[in-house]
């Protein structure tokens, strides 16, 4: 029989703080993590100079040389976020971590940018100079997942959810399935992304990165008529998932239950999202949860502020939930944290649900008439009681995910 899966810990490293108290304060005040990146001025042909880097954070002394040598910034953040999540779950030092019954489902768009450049230089200069024993392990796409594993001595399954902007949400979804079907009892799940010019350049090339360089905090503008593209963000967010019975037996604090997960793909276009399959993935998650659409009281949108993505998402959401569903995106606050956004938004949406309020979409001042009618949360935070929410994310290549969380 499938088991019920709950969340017993959250942890993160973000642009607006590294714990719920700091982040919720920023959300309530409508603060943005977006800044102008002065050092990006050296790239003349890069139009967008905006990003949302993580706020400074200090690592505890047990992050020593041997721990850090195999870690690019993306792996450091993945590990630290996971440590904070396990601390909250009360599982640091618990024998379950090394028992083989704990696994990891974690992702990012890619490994470390510096390490990747070292291999680039190798090709350009035809020399191995600058490569070390750790260059590859810092660059590989599952570097975050395995560094978390090494740090805690995890011996269960590692599921690298390396799928760009759905890395974090697939991480939670795959972790949920691993526990639901009995393969693991505890999972560390989530995603991360370190900041580099690369992703901004990708969207700049596609004319989908904001150029509001002189007014950083007015970008990005999800669903707004005057949006001009996304802003890349940085961060990591980890979630500890656990078999409900196990969590209850050890008296753990339970934050929410993961009741539904859907993932599918467009099979249509490498960058252009498809409303039809987006709607389908939401239905898949509802089906998995055994819930009607009317049970969901809030939709946390992917909402990156790209031209086509926002329209397709609003149309898909309306198709499944109707035009009265409360709806907002956190990209206005954090930018698009790519691999991290799925787990970051799940974490914050659940915490908002537990406190009966939801943040508005920052910078959504004038709705784009091309977006479908929904109950867009704008202006200030919305007081709203619900016991069930859905969080949606979409990635390049046409990967879609939907996660449904319920109060316990």
């Amino acid at each position, binding site marked *: 029989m499938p088991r019920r899966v709950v969340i017993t810990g959250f942890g993160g490293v973000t642009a607006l703080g590294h714990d719920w108290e700091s982040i919720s304060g920023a959300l309530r005040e409508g603060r943005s993590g977006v800044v102008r990146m002065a050092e990006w001025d050296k790239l003349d042909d890069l139009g967008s100079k905006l990003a949302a880097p993580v706020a400074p954070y200090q690592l505890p002394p047990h992050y020593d040389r041997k721990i850090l*040598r195999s870690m690019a910034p993306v792996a450091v953040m993945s590990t630290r976020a996971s440590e904070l999540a396990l601390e909250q779950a009360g599982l640091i030092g618990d024998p379950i971590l090394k028992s083989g019954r704990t696994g990891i489902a974690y992702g990012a768009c890619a490994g470390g940018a510096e390490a990747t450049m070292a291999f680039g230089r190798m090709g350009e200069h035809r020399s191995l*100079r600058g*490569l*070390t*024993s750790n260059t590859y392990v810092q660059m590989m796409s599952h570097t975050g997942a395995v560094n978390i594993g090494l740090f805690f001595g995890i011996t269960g399954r590692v599921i690298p959810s390396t799928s760009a902007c759905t890395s974090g949400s697939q991480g939670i979804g795959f972790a949920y399935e691993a526990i639901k079907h009995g393969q693991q009892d505890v999972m560390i799940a989530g995603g991360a992304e370190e900041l580099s010019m690369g992703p901004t350049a990708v969207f700049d090339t596609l004319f989908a990165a904001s150029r509001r360089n002189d007014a950083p905090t007015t970008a990005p503008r999800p669903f707004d008529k005057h949006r001009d593209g996304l802003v890349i963000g940085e961060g990591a967010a980890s979630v500890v998932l656990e078999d409900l019975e196990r969590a209850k037996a050890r008296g753990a604090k339970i934050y929410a239950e993961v009741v539904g997960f859907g993932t599918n793909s467009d099979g249509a276009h490498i960058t252009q999202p498809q409303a039809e399959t987006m709607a389908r993935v939401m239905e898949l998650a509802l089906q998995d949860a055994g819930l009607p659409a009317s049970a969901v009281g809030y939709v946390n949108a992917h909402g990156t502020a790209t031209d086509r993505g926002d329209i397709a998402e609003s149309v898909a959401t309306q198709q499944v939930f109707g035009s009265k569903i409360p709806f907002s995106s956190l990209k206005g606050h954090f930018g698009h944290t790519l691999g991290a956004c799925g787990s970051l938004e799940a974490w914050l949406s659940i915490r908002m649900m537990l406190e009966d309020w939801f943040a508005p979409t920052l910078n959504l001042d004038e709705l784009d008439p091309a977006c479908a009618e929904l109950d867009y949360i704008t202006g200030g935070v919305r007081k709203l009681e619900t016991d069930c929410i859905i969080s949606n994310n979409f990635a390049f290549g046409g990967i879609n995910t939907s996660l449904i969380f319920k109060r316990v």
Partner: protein
Amino acid sequence: MLPQDVFKTLKDTLVEQFDLDPAKITPEARLYEDLDLDSIDAVDMVIKLQEMTGRKVSPEDFKGVRTVADVQRIIEQMLVPSQPSP
């Protein structure tokens, strides 16, 4: 780098590269047991030596290294100008 400086240079390099206590770096110190280095640290040490000397360390020499003195000997061999081919 002059041969008489080899030990000092090696010591400084190890201290900097691996956060080691300088007092522990003696010629007899065993890399793995006494200095707590491991196989991939050894690789990074060799990469550093190659950068310093501009010469390649052979896989045989690398595998035979056990102590700081062994490393010093390899560096000294690397610093000997190669004989012109007959």
